[in-house]
């Protein structure tokens, strides 16, 4: 097994910049953590899930579709060097797996895969959560994983590409630490995950009346933060900008919490009330996606609850829903 000391982390990832476009968690001046280049700030692997979704590295808030001019269409090019993105928790990796599948199924979304194809994904786990809390091991879904055992980062590769990257690192004796950590992480039962599963059952059993969604909708200010923070929210809008002699078409994250999301030119709107939109936000993750994809598409990352100004993220809604309809 390979390992890195915490002090070696910045240099290790800096050295990969020769071959990769490296993004890793850094600390910004006000204490916000985000994905940045090595050297943009202090490396900040500790602290758990990043506030912004790391999947944005592959599917940014706004990105080009094409530029059209008299000579034809110019499509955005793939990154010069493949992306190497560090900082996915096991939950983030589950989200990434989900959207990889979403973008690949049926018509393959080439814009997404232009960034995603060939990219290396690095997970973080172990005792590196907020305040030293534990983060479950991913044990897959990434190229390699950094597991903090409170003294060093165990480097566990899961793919050939991952192995190749970490090849040169120092070897440590296989003393059973990883197995011990895996067991320690496994004993934590996540209350939020339980709530999400139970809420899903209740919604799918049609136990949640429309009045509930309207009540939650009353508390929604349509900031759209839940959608924009959610790693499995992939809805997008398209915008054309006309410059002299060319048109730039781009796409940007959209939100089902907006009245205009489904409104048709005729005025007809299948999501025409706050209650219906609130229902859609939760129902889509907990009922519709299980029907389509065979799994709940909320992987319990907690971002919508953190970003919601009024306290109606999916955990909060799930708990309220269970409290009110769980024992009928």
């Amino acid at each position, binding site marked *: 097994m390979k390992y890195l000391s915490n002090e070696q982390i910045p240099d290790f990832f800096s050295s990969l910049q020769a071959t990769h476009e490296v993004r890793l968690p850094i600390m910004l001046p006000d204490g916000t953590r985000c994905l940045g280049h090595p050297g943009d700030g202090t490396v900040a692997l500790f602290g758990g899930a990043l506030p912004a979704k790391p999947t944005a590295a592959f599917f940014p808030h706004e990105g080009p579709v094409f530029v059209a001019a008299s000579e034809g269409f110019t499509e955005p090019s793939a990154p010069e060097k493949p992306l190497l993105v560090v900082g996915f928790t096991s939950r983030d990796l589950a989200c990434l797996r989900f959207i990889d599948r979403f973008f690949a199924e049926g018509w393959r979304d080439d814009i997404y895969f232009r960034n995603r194809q060939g990219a290396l994904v690095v997970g973080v786990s172990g005792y590196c959560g907020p305040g030293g809390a534990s983060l479950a091991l991913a044990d897959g879904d990434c190229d390699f994983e950094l597991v903090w055992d409170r003294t060093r980062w165990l480097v566990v590769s899961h793919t050939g590409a991952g192995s190749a990257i970490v090849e040169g690192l120092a070897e440590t004796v296989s003393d059973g630490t990883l197995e011990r950590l895996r067991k320690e992480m496994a004993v934590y039962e996540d209350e939020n995950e339980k709530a999400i599963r139970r809420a899903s059952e209740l919604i799918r059993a049609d136990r949640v009346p429309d009045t509930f969604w309207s009540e939650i909708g009353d508390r929604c200010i349509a900031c759209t933060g839940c959608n924009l923070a959610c790693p499995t929210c992939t809805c997008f809008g398209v915008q054309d900008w006309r410059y002299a002699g060319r048109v730039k078409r781009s796409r940007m994250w959209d939100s089902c919490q*907006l009245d205009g999301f489904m409104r048709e030119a005729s005025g007809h709107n299948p999501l025409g009330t706050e209650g219906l939109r609130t229902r859609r936000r939760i129902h889509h993750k907990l009922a519709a996606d299980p029907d389509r994809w065979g799994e709940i598409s909320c992987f319990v990352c907690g971002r919508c609850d953190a970003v919601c100004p009024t306290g109606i993220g999916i955990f909060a809604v799930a708990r309220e829903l269970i409290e009110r309809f769980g024992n009928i």
Partner: protein
Amino acid sequence: MKRTLTVCPYCGTGCMFYLVSDSGRLIGVEPSTTHPVSRGGLCVKGWNAFGFVHHPDRLTTPLIRRDGKLHPASWDEALGLVAERLREIQERHGADSLMFASSAKATNEENYLLMKLARGVFGTNNIDHCARLCHSSTVTGLAETFGSGAMTNSIDCFDNTDLILIIGSNTTEQHPLIGSRILKAARRGTKLIVADNRLIRLARHADLHLRHNNGSDVALLNAMMQVIIAEGLEDREFIAARCENFEAFAASIADWTPERAAPLTGLQPGEIVAAARLFAGAKRAMIVYSMGITQHSHGVDNVRCCAALAMLTGNVGRPGTGVNPLRGQNNVQGGCDMGALPDVFSGYQKVSDPMVREKFTRAWGVDALPSTPGLPLTRAMDAAAEGKLHGMFFMGENPILSDPDQGHARHALKNLDFLVVQDIFLTETAALADVVLPAACYAEKEGTFTNTERRIQRVRKGVEPPGEAKADWEIICALAKQAGCDKMHYPDPSAVMDEIASVTPIYGGISYDRLDPLGLQWPCPDRDHPGTPILHIGRFNRGKGRFSPVIYRSPAELPDEEFPFVLTTGRTYFHWHTGTMTRRTHLLDREERRSFIEINPDDAARLGVRERDDVLIASRRGSVRAQARITGIVIPGVVFMPFHFTEGAANALTNNVLDPESSIPEFKVCAVQVRKAP
């Protein structure tokens, strides 16, 4: 990939976020997770605040009007012409025939510099900005009663209060991150009284919703205070120790019984009594207000009543209390603080005070400064219409859409000899200008904004401005130089702030090195001062809090047979003011593309108007077309219309009648007729 921490350019809440850019282009926004106001969240405008920055319509070069058309020009040409023409007008008609309109969208430094340019270089106090249209009533009313025209408390206070009275503020739409605090407080048990006849989101969560008639706030508040005094619920200790003129005030409202107020407000006397008891019974009560209080021909009176209610119940100078006007624009507090007002220098230092003038004369190295207060923006428009004003300089304002009575505003501007507009897009106003100067937007420059809780925060440059556009502060300094002033030269905005600190006591301790990461709240008189989250602790800024008696006056134009509806105007959640930025932001534009009116189902049925029908709305001043939204949000007899849309402009209808003291227009009440469009 680069991240730049900056302040949201929309409302006065002052959320901070990171602009995310890649190869010199903005690609998104990420909230600051540690910011004390936004706490990791943003509203829909904040999340989309990067969306208009690279828009193809951005102005990229100065424009000069020749043969009736605007043509590209060099900076030297354009600024040379501006300096020459302004000087010419100054010489021919006097300095006071010029008017400078500063901007609540621009930074503190830029507002200070334009103020300095107007007074120090062109010798006129004719400088003002759009605070005239939003909170001039507050500045006047709270200065008189408390000694400081700013929000008394901090946004954090919403987390620790027992009652919030929201009067004339649609907080979840207009200050969404403050509105969401109020929503959360209500969930925790804080009582809410909403006084607003629109069924706004907060009203759905209120313990008491008072749907009083538009413009009857004085009657409502006087009657509430009458009940409080009649029932002995006032805080006598606070009044005795901290306030003055109480006896006269109490006498003035003695006959304002709920029964007298009932027909004026349209409320039941019982509702007023309930509100009074609920408010007076709270240990800590906050008053929150905004344009619904200020934008009246009696706006200052409304503010006086709010101040009196807070003093009467001892709700000033403690956490979780206070009179909290929510400032509309990102930097309208700063625009006022910087003295972009006709009667004061920065820090509300009066131009009429010889000592103050002496100080600024010395600091600026000028011979003399004008001593007579200048024209408020609204009065300046009247003067222009009458031919008494000859040249105007607008920085980042669009009066053709934002001022009352569009026909009047258009006539005023067309009547000028020379009009300069400095902006980021070719606005409806810029299209009329003789010279247009292309400015950098918030994401392209350095500086500071001051939010509604008086928090001075850093604005930072994330990307380069388009083409030849320059930051407003650079343009003002270059213009000063062209006008022959060699003393307005700064390496960067932080040097401007150092000068501001040196001449402005409330900003005395402000320096860029102290503003990271979370800013400072003024007053902050010296470098060691930690800033002031709550004003008037122990003592009012003016000494004793003053109870100012108020005589009830009705709105200037009431409905009649010909114009049977009350029109009240405002903003929507998705758009900002004249729409220059939000209508060029994809998702925001998609949400609301057309001018609309909200009309009550009863009224709509009577007029044969169905949902989404086009209607014609006419007042004595104009007529516009808009789409009908039939909704119980408005009461029968009242229609609401946003002022964002140039096609269907609400301000073609509004009444240019001004509050006699603050010169704020009565945007909130005028009489209109509505009919189905053919």
